[in-house]
Each structure stands twice: as structure tokens, then as C-alpha cells.
């Protein structure tokens, strides 16, 4: 088998199938939506067509059965119901499992799906019957399973009469009465007289034969034969079991289960997003990407050293060259990082299915709403998130959302809502999982924690509701009254937390009894490169991941915020005592320790602490490297990195670091006694805010649009006309000086200057400010509104009046058109070629890739469209010599496209060739005449021959057109 072709097939089939699951559930919610049904049908159709071509018999059978059922549903406009959806989901599952096996083994796995195929057949016939009078269809036998020889005929018999004795079978065989009909015809008297038959046997056999004949289950049903063959003991009476199946399906259908258990509403998902985009993509081994990533990591480090050395040399030529190297490296790094990114959708795709299945099992009604599924994350992190997410969702469905009648009693809609959202927030991804269920009673958690000895009674009384809720993540604390088999299979929320922390993230929970529960996961975009704060302690440098840092404090020795309780140092921060880890002492760097220096405040979600260091150098992007075997027992080292000067620096794992500091219960109690009243500000009100100063004034700017904080030499600001610009990454961006905006006198900048890089993902600008003071999470409470549109108003941050900037106004100052999206410009190219042009319309990338090389070989220029609509768009701009189109396509199929083209005179001389996957695909006579030819897309040879003949004919008929056409790359503009 052609391996490349197979890989291509797998890639595409998996893409198609992942979409099907969702589409089936969408269909369940909107049973009459023909568009979705069409899309599902096409996907299965493509899979079937491709496996026929690749000789994957088992897969083809399953796909074929599914396709037949879908085709019947489609042609009879049969309303989809939950049972049909379940059956079709099972069919896609079967296909997926076969594909998985194929992918891992390289050959089609030997999985028996005859039972499923059988049920699909039954459902198909039922659909036909129920849709109106049509007799149960009797399928034609696919050639490959036609009966051959004696064993085949015996199988025939066993197919409908598995219980018949060997002797009896031999007798029937001798007389040639193998089909149920033949046995019926022979009659009771004759059968009774046969060797090996008692009267009872004959009666029994006739009964079975009758049922078999009634349901068209005679010897022409190969699927059943296969079933008997493979499951002799499991299904002793096939005819009877079919009967039962029919009854079950009938019953369900008759009940008209029109209300689907899970209606899946998706927001912000356009039909286009579901399209496979593999046309311009290749498969790359992830290991290769990982090793590339490592090497680029090395390059970044080498670059850092080079830049430092060159700057020290003062040679301007070197500086210029190294700036180029700097630039290219940066680009390389960021683009390589992007190759590892995948939309979170790839994990979320399974959510509606999970919720649907859970809903059905628990008899609850749950709607899933998803926002921001296009948010991209490093694939390693995505993979690690899969299990925790599934667990959280199961928990929400199981324990969170109440039974419909309970919900109604509580005055809530019977249908529960599970809301997933993902968004980017200053270098991190925040994922929220919210349900509108019963919520979690903090008091109950407290009681449980006390009863299990996690908290002392005293602690239990003092702990805040918010902190109590975080105890959910404590090992062995599950509040569900009885553990169901759906969630909590011995896995607690503590595992969820561990898993998330393992990829450098954190999770916390908030809940309002009766209203619902929200889990908030915050994770870094990527693991390979992290933003870290470089600190110095006793002459040695350490890196602390920015992820865990809440804020930085300067703590002079004589500050009266210091407290020592039971030997443990605390620092009073906004009225609360923060335990302080003296790094020098903890790491045994020095014997003499004083409470003085800078404090890095670490926020771990459920607890905070400060790390006292001598000095804070600043934030840097560092490449994380693993540590050797000698440090495995020192969990607080999360890894190491190499700094610009070539020196190795250890990176802390803050969760483990926290464990080095255990507060004794007495100290904890004393701290709580000293602690002022709880100021329980919910997280939603806290904003990441950057505080900077300009002259005497202090300003605060919310972090939402701040992509990065840069410290760079003032010389890097260049002049372009009247404005100032900065080369940043692969861009030139405008520099706005904050001093200018607020009307300070212009100053000459020198030395290193601070620049806030503002970005909304599309555009960037740099806001130059005088001095960055702090980055902190704070409630931005506006005390006094401002007249100046530049400001939102005045807030008090850390006791100082601070002007809060309206970042959107600032951005507008830089570029009035910032928020007006530019439309992508069409790439124009001078078309001077004399090549003949083919408009190739095909929705399946697999077939596109199969056919495209033929054009290349024949020297034609091909314009590719993924459906009729795209083809029309191209036709409106330029005229091909030939249109080659697939028939089954989304949005606008091949027939519709042909009608559209033929309605227009200007296209009269363009011949249209239809492409089909299988010879049996019938084309109606109306359209038959509109195609100059129908070609098989799977037969490369005849396709090549046919195409070149048609094209040669065209050439003869008319002179070649030479035109300056605009070439639109359809793939690129999507």
C-alpha cells in the first residue's frame, strides 16, 4: 500500500470523523437540517470511497453500511432521532477504532463489526418502512461476500438457522433447501421425513424460516452470515435477535423521541471552520518538532551570548550583523512555537459527546456552550489537559447539575448549561468551566475537612469560604454523598490539580450555592520557553516562573510590616500576614539572615507566600532544560536554563518550593489571630495591572492589551518621518511616548528605556514610559471619574492615588484605524504563462492531493476550489479552459455548480467534466448531458488519458487566451 497515500487518508479521515461527532449531535438538536446531514453523508461517503481505493475491506463495509443508512435518511427526509444518532455515533466510533488500529499497526485491524453492520441494515430498512409504505429493501449482495463453494452454502443455512443439527444440515444441503424460502416451500411433511429431523425439529426450523423470510433475512444477507460466523455462541438465534432488534428500534422510533437529551449549541462557529485544511499541510513527526525546538532553544541562547559580546565590542558593523541574527532568531523561534500550537478545539471536540452520553445515562438535560475554541495552546499542554478537563466536566454533569425536576423546583430551567470558555490573558491561557448547577456548599466542605482531619476545628471556623472551596483539591476529599460510576472513579480533584500543575498551570474554584460552580484554569501558552523573574540571593541567581508570581515588593529592614511569629517571618501585605520564606536560610546559603531585601509574592491559588531575596533583576524569557538524576529528589528545582552570559541558572517549581516551608498549626493559628478582617475580594474583580510612573505621577494600565514589557536601549527607537518607530520581531511598530500624551516637555531619551508592547493579536505598538513600578493583581476601583478621555479615572493602588489609563484610547492615538480590520489583499501575479487552466472543484483533500499531481505532469495550471461556491467566486474573476468537478460537495454541489455555469452565456465554451469516486454513482440524465465526460477520480491512468484528450480538443478549437489574471490562492485566503 502506498504509505503516503495511506497517511493522507488517515489524516483526512480523522479530520472528517472528528467533525462528524459534533455534526451528529447538532443534527440531533435540529433533526431537519439537511445541510448537516449532507455534510455527514459526504464525510462517510469519502471515507468509504477512499477505503475502497486503498483496499480496506473491513472499514469499507462499516462505512458502507453507515452511508446506506444516511443515504436512506437523506432521500426519505426522515427526521433524525436520538437512537439513530446513537447508532450512527457507534458507527463512527467503529470507523475510528479501525482507523486507529490502521494507524498504529499499518494494516487494517481484525475487528469484527458485523453486529453493528447488521443493526445499521435493520435501521436502514426500518427507516424505509416507517418513512412510508416502502417495502423493506432487500440489498444486493456485494460481490466480495458472495457465496462460494460448499462452506459458503452451509453458512447460508446457518445464517438464518444456526440451531439446526449437523445431520439435519447435511440433509438440507443434500436437497438444496438452504434458503429460508426453500425450507418454507418444502413444507412440514417433507422436512419431518428427512434424516435427522424429528417433528419438533421440523416445526422449530419452519418457525425460524418464517421469521427469516418475513424480515427479508434469507440467504441473501451476507452481513448476518458473517455475524453467525464470528459470534456463534453470543447470538444463537440470529433471526430472533434481529426480530428483537427491530422491536427495540421500532419501539424507540414509535415513541418519537423527538426531544434530544443534549442539544448542543455552539457559538461563533461558522460552517467554514469545520473544513479540513490539510491541502497546504504535511505531516511532521512530533519528535522532529521537539528536537527542532530544542535546537532553536540553543540558538536563542547562543544568540544572547553573541549579542552581549558584540555590544561589548562596540564595533558598529558587528552590531548591525548581530541585530540581523537577533531578528531572524526571534522570528524562527516564534514561528516554530506556532507549529506546536493547536486550537483548544481539538480537546473540546469530545466534550459534547461526553456530556451527551452522561446526560443520557443520568437522565439530565445539559446544554454545552463553548467560547474561544480557536484559542491555541502548545500540544504538550493540550494533551496534558485532556484528562483533567474530562474529569471536571464529568464532575459538573454528575454532581453539579441537578435533576430536571429539582431544577424546576429551584426555579431554574430544566435544562442545565455547561459553559466552557478559553481566552488569552497576558501570555497565559485562562480556561473557565462553569455550570449553573447546585453549587458547592463551603460549609459542608469545611465540615468534611475537619472530620477528615485536614483542618483543625479552629481552622475550620476561621477559614474563608473561598479558601474552604479550594480544599476540594485536597487529596481524598470528595463531597459527593455517594460515588457514582460516572465521575470519581477513584480519581479525585487532587489529581486534576496535580495534572494541571505538572504543565505549569494552576486551578481554582469558586461556587455559589444554588447558582453554580466555576473552575478557572490558568496555564502558560507553552512549556518550552517561559517568562521568569530572575532574582539574586547570596550572589547566586535563580529563576522564578512568572506564572506563579503575584507581585514584587521591596521590603526594607526597618519596615514596620515585618512580624515574627514563632520564629516564622511574616510581612503584612494589604492588611494580611504573608508568610515569608528566606531563601538564604531555606537553601542554607548563609548563616546570617536578616529580614531585608525584595519579596517575590507567589500565588498558588490556595495559598500565598513570599520569597525573600537580595535583589530582583527582572523578567526574562528562558528556555527550560531538564535537570539530571542528581536533582530528582530536589523537587523544588523545576529545571534549569542558560542565561545570556552562558551561566546556568536553576528554575524553581513554586508548588514544591512552598512545601519547604511548613507552618506549624500553632503558628498558623497565631497568624490568623493577628490577621485583620478577611477582605474577600473575588477573583473576578481583580485585574492584572501594571503601574508605572512618569515624573511624580503614577499611572496604572490594565494588562489586557500588554503583550510584553520591554527594556531596550533608547537608540533602538528610529525615526520614520515625523513619528518614532521600533523594530520589533518581524515588524516595525509605532512608538508613542507617554510623556508626550500627557503633555510633559519632550526629553531626550538615553540609556535603557521601558516600552510596553500593546497588541490585540493583529497590530502592535510600543508605549514608552519612564519607569515601571510594579505589576500586580488588584481591584481597580475607580474612586474619581476623569474628564480626560485618556483616563478611566483615579484609583488607589497600594495606598497611592494612581491614574488608570484607558488603553483603548491610547491605542487610538497611535493609529486611528487600529480597530478597523484591514481586509486581506489579494496577491497579484503576472500571468504570462500559456498553460491551459483547469478549475478543479473537490471538497476532499485526499482526492485533491491524488488528482493534483496529474495536472502537474500534464502541465496544466490548476485553480482549486473546495466547493461550488468557491468555484463560482473564481469563475467571476477569471475563466478556465475546463472545469473538473466532484459531485458531492458541501455548500454547493457539482450539479448545482454545473447549472450555475450553464446558465451563463460567457461560460458556454467551457466544458465541464464530472469526477466520481465509484462507477455506481449514478448521474441523472438532465445533468448527464451537461458534462462532456464523467471520469473516475481513483483511476489515475484513465484520468490522465481522458484529461489530456479533452484538453487537446479544446486547444484545437480555439486559440489560447493570454491574460493578466489575478491569481487568488484559495487556500491562503481561508
Amino acid at each position, binding site marked *: 500500500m502506498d504509505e503516503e497515500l495511506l497517511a493522507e487518508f488517515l489524516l483526512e479521515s480523522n479530520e472528517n470523523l472528528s467533525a462528524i461527532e459534533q455534526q451528529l449531535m447538532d443534527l440531533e438538536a435540529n433533526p431537519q437540517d439537511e445541510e448537516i446531514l449532507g455534510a455527514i453523508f459526504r464525510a462517510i461517503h469519502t471515507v468509504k470511497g477512499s477505503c475502497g481505493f486503498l483496499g480496506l475491506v473491513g472499514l469499507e463495509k462499516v462505512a458502507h453500511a453507515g452511508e446506506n443508512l444516511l443515504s436512506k435518511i437523506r432521500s426519505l427526509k426522515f427526521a433524525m432521532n436520538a437512537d439513530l444518532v446513537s447508532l450512527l455515533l457507534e458507527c463512527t466510533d467503529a470507523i475510528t477504532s479501525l482507523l486507529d488500529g490502521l494507524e498504529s499497526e499499518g494494516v487494517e485491524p481484525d475487528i469484527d463489526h458485523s453486529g453493528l453492520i447488521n443493526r445499521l441494515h435493520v435501521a436502514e430498512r426500518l427507516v424505509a418502512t416507517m418513512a412510508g409504505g416502502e417495502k423493506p429493501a432487500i440489498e444486493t449482495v456485494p460481490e466480495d461476500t458472495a457465496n462460494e463453494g460448499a462452506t459458503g452454502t452451509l453458512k447460508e443455512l446457518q445464517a438464518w438457522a444456526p440451531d439446526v443439527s449437523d445431520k439435519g444440515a447435511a440433509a438440507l444441503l443434500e436437497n438444496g433447501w438452504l434458503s429460508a424460502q426453500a425450507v418454507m416451500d418444502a413444507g412440514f411433511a417433507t422436512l419431518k421425513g428427512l434424516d435427522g429431523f424429528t417433528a419438533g425439529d421440523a416445526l422449530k426450523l419452519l418457525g425460524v424460516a418464517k421469521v427469516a423470510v418475513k424480515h427479508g433475512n434469507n440467504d441473501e444477507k451476507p452481513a448476518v452470515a458473517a455475524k453467525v460466523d464470528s459470534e456463534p455462541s453470543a447470538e444463537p438465534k440470529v433471526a430472533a435477535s434481529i426480530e428483537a432488534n427491530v422491536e427495540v428500534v421500532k419501539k424507540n422510533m414509535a415513541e418519537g423521541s423527538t426531544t434530544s437529551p443534549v442539544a448542543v449549541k455552539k457559538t461563533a462557529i461558522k460552517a467554514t471552520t469545520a473544513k479540513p485544511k490539510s491541502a497546504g499541510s504535511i505531516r511532521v513527526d512530533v519528535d522532529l518538532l521537539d528536537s527542532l525546538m530544542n535546537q532553536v532553544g540553543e540558538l536563542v541562547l*547562543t544568540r544572547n551570548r553573541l549579542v552581549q559580546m558584540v555590544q561589548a565590542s562596540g564595533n558598529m558593523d558587528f552590531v548591525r550583523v548581530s541585530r540581523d541574527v537577533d531578528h531572524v532568531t526571534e522570528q524562527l523561534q516564534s514561528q516554530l512555537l506556532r507549529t506546536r500550537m493547536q486550537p483548544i478545539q481539538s480537546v473540546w471536540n469530545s466534550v459534547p459527546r461526553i456530556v451527551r452520553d452522561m446526560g443520557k445515562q443520568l437522565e439530565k438535560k445539559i446544554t454545552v456552550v463553548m467560547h474561544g475554541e480557536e484559542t491555541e495552546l502548545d500540544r504538550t499542554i493540550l494533551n496534558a489537559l485532556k484528562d483533567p478537563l474530562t474529569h471536571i466536566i464529568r464532575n459538573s454533569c454528575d454532581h453539579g447539575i441537578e435533576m430536571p425536576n429539582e431544577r424546576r423546583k429551584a426555579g431554574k430551567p430544566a435544562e442545565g448549561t455547561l459553559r466552557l470558555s478559553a481566552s488569552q490573558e497576558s501570555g497565559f491561557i485562562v480556561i473557565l468551566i462553569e455550570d449553573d448547577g447546585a453549587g458547592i456548599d463551603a460549609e459542608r466542605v469545611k465540615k468534611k475537612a475537619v472530620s477528615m482531619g485536614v483542618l483543625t476545628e479552629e481552622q475550620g471556623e476561621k477559614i474563608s469560604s473561598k479558601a474552604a472551596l479550594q480544599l476540594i483539591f485536597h487529596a481524598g476529599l470528595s463531597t459527593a454523598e455517594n460515588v457514582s460510576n460516572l465521575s470519581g472513579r477513584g480519581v479525585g480533584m487532587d489529581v486534576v490539580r496535580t495534572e494541571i500543575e505538572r504543565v505549569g498551570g494552576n486551578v481554582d474554584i469558586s461556587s455559589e450555592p444554588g447558582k453554580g460552580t466555576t473552575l478557572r484554569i490558568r496555564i502558560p501558552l507553552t512549556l518550552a520557553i517561559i517568562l521568569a523573574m530572575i532574582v539574586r540571593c547570596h550572589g*547566586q541567581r535563580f529563576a522564578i516562573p512568572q506564572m506563579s508570581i503575584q507581585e514584587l515588593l521591596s521590603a526594607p529592614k526597618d519596615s514596620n510590616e515585618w512580624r515574627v511569629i514563632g520564629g516564622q517571618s511574616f510581612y503584612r501585605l494589604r492588611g494580611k500576614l504573608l508568610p515569608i520564606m528566606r531563601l538564604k536560610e531555606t537553601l542554607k546559603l548563609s548563616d546570617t539572615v536578616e529580614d531585608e531585601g525584595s519579596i517575590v509574592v507567589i500565588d498558588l491559588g490556595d495559598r500565598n507566600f513570599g520569597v525573600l531575596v537580595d535583589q530582583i533583576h527582572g523578567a526574562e524569557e528562558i528556555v527550560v532544560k531538564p535537570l539530571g538524576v*542528581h*536533582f530528582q*529528589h530536589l523537587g523544588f528545582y523545576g529545571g*534549569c536554563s542558560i542565561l545570556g552570559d552562558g*551561566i546556568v541558572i536553576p528554575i524553581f517549581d513554586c508548588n514544591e518550593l512552598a512545601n519547604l516551608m511548613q507552618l506549624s498549626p500553632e503558628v498558623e493559628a497565631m497568624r490568623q489571630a493577628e490577621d485583620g478582617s478577611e477582605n474577600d475580594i473575588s477573583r473576578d474583580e481583580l485585574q492584572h495591572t501594571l503601574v508605572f510612573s512618569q515624573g511624580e505621577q503614577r499611572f496604572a494600565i490594565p494588562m489586557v492589551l500588554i503583550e510584553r514589557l520591554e527594556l531596550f536601549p533608547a537608540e533602538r527607537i528610529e525615526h520614520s518621518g515625523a513619528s518614532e518607530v521600533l523594530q520589533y520581531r518581524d515588524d516595525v511598530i509605532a512608538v508613542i511616548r507617554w510623556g508626550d500624551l500627557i503633555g510633559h516637555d519632550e526629553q531626550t531619551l538615553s540609556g535603557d528605556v521601558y516600552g510596553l508592547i500593546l497588541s490585540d493579536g493583529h497590530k502592535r505598538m510600543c508605549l514608552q514610559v519612564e519607569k515601571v513600578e510594579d505589576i500586580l493583581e488588584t481591584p481597580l476601583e475607580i474612586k474619581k471619574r476623569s474628564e480626560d478621555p485618556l483616563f478611566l479615572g483615579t484609583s488607589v493602588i497600594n495606598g497611592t492615588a494612581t491614574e488608570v489609563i484607558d488603553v483603548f484610547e491610547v491605542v487610538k492615538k497611535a493609529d486611528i484605524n487600529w480597530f478597523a480590520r484591514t481586509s486581506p489583499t489579494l496577491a497579484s501575479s503576472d500571468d504570462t504563462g500559456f498553460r491551459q487552466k483547469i478549475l478543479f472543484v473537490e471538497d476532499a483533500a485526499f482526492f485533491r492531493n491524488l488528482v493534483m499531481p496529474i495536472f502537474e505532469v500534464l502541465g496544466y495550471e490548476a485553480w482549486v476550489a473546495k466547493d461550488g461556491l468557491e468555484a463560482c467566486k473564481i469563475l467571476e474573476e477569471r475563466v478556465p479552459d475546463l472545469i473538473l468537478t466532484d459531485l458531492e460537495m458541501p455548500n454547493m454541489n457539482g450539479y448545482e455548480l454545473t447549472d450555475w455555469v450553464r446558465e451563463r452565456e460567457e461560460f458556454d465554451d467551457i466544458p465541464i467534466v464530472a469526477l466520481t469516486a465509484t462507477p455506481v454513482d449514478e448521474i441523472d440524465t438532465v445533468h448527464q448531458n451537461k458534462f462532456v465526460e464523467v471520469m473516475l477520480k481513483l483511476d489515475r491512468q484513465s484520468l490522465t488519458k481522458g484529461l489530456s484528450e479533452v484538453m487537446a480538443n479544446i486547444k484545437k478549437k480555439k486559440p489560447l487566451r493570454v491574460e493578466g489574471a489575478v491569481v487568488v490562492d484559495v487556500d491562503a485566503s481561508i
Partner: protein
Amino acid sequence: MNGLVAVQEHAHTELLTCRVGDQWIGFHVQQVREVVTNQERTQMPLSSDAVLGLINLRGRVMTELDVRKVVGLPERAAGKSYHVAIIESSSGEDFGLTVDEVGEVMLLNPDHYEPTPRSLDAVWKEVSEGVLKLEDGVLVLVNVERFIALTIPRAEQGVSDAAVLH
């Protein structure tokens, strides 16, 4: 496999000779990537005694282990020169082993080989695969895997005595 069989099988084995204190030792040349002089080193607080710290060798971070510490010799006097043999272990991780002096590369002569003598210092015995009798004393053949295992905290989880001559 005992040391002698291994040595005989590798009759053409070359050894890198190094001096630690007064003792000469030999590493199999195939296991030595290179020898470097003192590198800028990052100390790792709370790590075990044998660990000198981390060094950066052209972008590769590796753990530097002090042979003197492992065999119980006093710390090297500050400012005294030393060499770091970069060793490739079977686990794939590279280590730097600091020694006081690096001598020549010599061919292992099976005639001079003897199993580890009882009289050898206990610490050397643990990592020895046998000795070579030379004119001016004995040279200890060091089993690198066993040596490294000795330096790992809770060694029973590290490379065990299953390690054999490469």
C-alpha cells in the same frame, strides 16, 4: 560478568589515565567525550556532596561531580588547577568528572591486569573493575556507571551493580 572476562574481551581497550590525589585511575576512552579545564559553574544549593554544580558545555547543561569528594579526599585547594572529563553514561546523560590531572591515553595490556585486590581502599573497591600493575604502582580501572550511581542520592534507585564494562 566479572571484570577479567570483560577486559580480555576488550583487549584493545584504550584507557584515559587521570590522577586523583595520589591515585591514578583509568576510564575507558569510548566513554570519555572530551576533557575540558575549569568551566564557569553554578552551584546547586541542597544538592548532595559529590555534586559540584552545573556547567554549560556549548549549550548542554551537565552535572559536574567531584571525584575527590566521592573517594573521601579533602577538598581541592582553591585556585588549584583541575580537569573535567566529560563522561557519557549508559542512560544518555553526560556528566563532568573533575580530576586533578589528566595523563596519557594507554592501551590496556591484559598481562598487567589483576582483579581488584583486597588491599585496595574501600571507596576505590566499590568502583573498581580491577587494577593494572604498573611500574610505579597500581592504576584502578573505574566503572563509570557504578561511580555515578554512588553519587546519586538514594543510590539503590539509580544505576545498580548490574552495570558492567562497556
